């Protein structure tokens, strides 16, 4: 698609659980700087794919390359260290920690001070902590959740939890951001806000892979769309092309006389 190497390249990825083939030879690229979407009906294997990409599942075969590195089989914390950050479909926030602490935890890798220095509150650590607190405050402002900073994240309504989770992911300054159904269970207004925030991240140079089962959400915003159905990649391309693809229409609406989805 472009001359630059893709931010993410998935090649022939296969994954099965006790004989159930969850992913079958899935291959696709996410171009650097793009907002790509991975869609598919429930049970298509979307989250399994994300779990492979982030090291929670080990694929049976195939290869995952991101940001010029081979990620296949790396541990989750190493994947994070490589600059690949994810959010969770069913919210992976630290429910007992305040919103600000959740974001600050996202700064873990960006903080330098070691165990001992940090434990002794040496002057340069205090300075670092102040700088980190400022980063967190900026993010709170960006996400319009500044007034919630001291609230335990677990007490927030679902839509706001999703937003905090996006904030925590952004706090890590990822190069590649994997968002697993960030808009599931949201009302229309919340979805619009979320789309705006995700586009904002892309515009600041983060490559985004958005996982979603609702096609209408992604068609307007994505640069490129990949469609997964029963573990197979059935379509890949610009949104216009994908939404008219007969295989995609069939997967979403059944086979007979389907209108193209918009």
């Amino acid at each position, binding site marked *: 698609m472009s001359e630059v190497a893709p931010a993410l390249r998935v090649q022939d990825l296969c994954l099965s659980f006790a004989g159930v083939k969850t992913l079958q030879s899935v291959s696709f690229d996410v171009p650097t700087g793009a907002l790509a979407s991975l869609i598919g009906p429930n049970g298509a294997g979307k989250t399994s794919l994300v779990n492979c990409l982030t090291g929670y599942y080990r694929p049976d075969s195939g290869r995952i390359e991101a940001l010029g590195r081979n990620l296949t089989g790396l541990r*989750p914390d190493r994947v994070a*260290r490589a600059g690949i950050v*994810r959010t969770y479909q069913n919210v992976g926030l*630290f429910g007992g920690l305040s919103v600000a602490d959740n974001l600050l*935890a996202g700064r873990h890798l960006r903080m330098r001070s070691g165990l001992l220095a940090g434990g002794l*509150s040496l002057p340069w650590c205090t300075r670092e902590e102040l700088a980190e607190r400022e980063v967190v405050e900026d993010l709170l402002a960006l996400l319009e959740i500044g007034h919630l900073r001291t609230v335990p994240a677990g*007490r927030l309504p679902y839509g706001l939890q999703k937003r905090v989770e996006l904030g925590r992911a952004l706090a890590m300054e990822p190069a590649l951001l994997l968002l697993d159904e960030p808009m599931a269970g949201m009302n229309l207004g919340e979805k619009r806000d979320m789309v705006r925030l995700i586009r904002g991240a892309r515009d600041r140079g983060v490559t985004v892979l958005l996982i979603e089962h609702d096609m209408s959400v992604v068609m307007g915003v994505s640069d490129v769309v990949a469609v997964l159905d029963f573990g197979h990649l059935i379509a890949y391309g610009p949104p216009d092309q994908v939404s008219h693809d007969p295989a995609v229409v069939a997967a979403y609406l059944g086979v007979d006389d389907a209108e193209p989805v918009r």
Partner: protein
Amino acid sequence: MNVLPQLLLNGVILGALYALISVGFVLVVKGSGVINLAQGELVLLGGYVTAWLLGERGLPAVVAVPAAMLLMAAAGLVVERVVVRPLENQSMLALLMATLALATILQGLVPIIFGSEPRSIPSPFNAAPVSVAGLQVPRVNVWSMGIALAFIALVAVFFATTRYGLAMRAASDHRLAAQSLGIRIRRVNAIAWAIAGAAAAFGGFAWGSVLGVDAGLALVGIFVFPVVILGGIDSLAGVVVGGLVVGIAESLATWYVDPLVGGGFGLVAPLLLLIVVLLVRPYGLFGRHEIGRV
């Protein structure tokens, strides 16, 4: 003479020491999510190590006690590496049983290494008791209480303000998510066990000074449970309050009830308290009240 103030003061001192060994337990729960049934045995080992350094090697207390804490921190690291890490993704129950096995192994191992003779910890302090507001308290108890509370405060500050403290809180809250932030769960576990070991060493010193060091020292581990259940299993502030409540309950019950029942009720009272708390506030006084959502 009114005996109540003296009983309360004794209870507070006792409570601070209960809180100290419970801190190790709470840290392991917070940091690595493991219910450690061997905390009492770690205290036992810590007591023997301290008695050995102080008595046989004849080191001064300012060297021996920190050295014992370092050695026990290392022992904590070994436990994490040998017992906890191989069971990384196993069920809670498997880990629970593993710590129970560890407790049994330590009970057998300690007499093999140090012999079964009871030892005393030579007191580094002047034998003359301190006089606090007209009450007499052994000097070693006052110092132990002070150091115990300082240790707990230090741990609390570490948790609240440092990068690894935050990483530990995050890991205990949601392990998967913590990993995806690049937090190394293994390192977090190791830190928790090292601090638990150090706390056990100081607990062994403080309790050993009072009770003497023999196999019975491991029994103080039982009182970790009323303390942490009272205080909430993941709260450091709760540990202090839980410790004080248990200490005072034991002190009062020993004086007022023991003569009536012929002795031993002081040790039963905290456990009765434990049952009552479980019935009334199962998440403890300070523990997080889980909110259910439909």
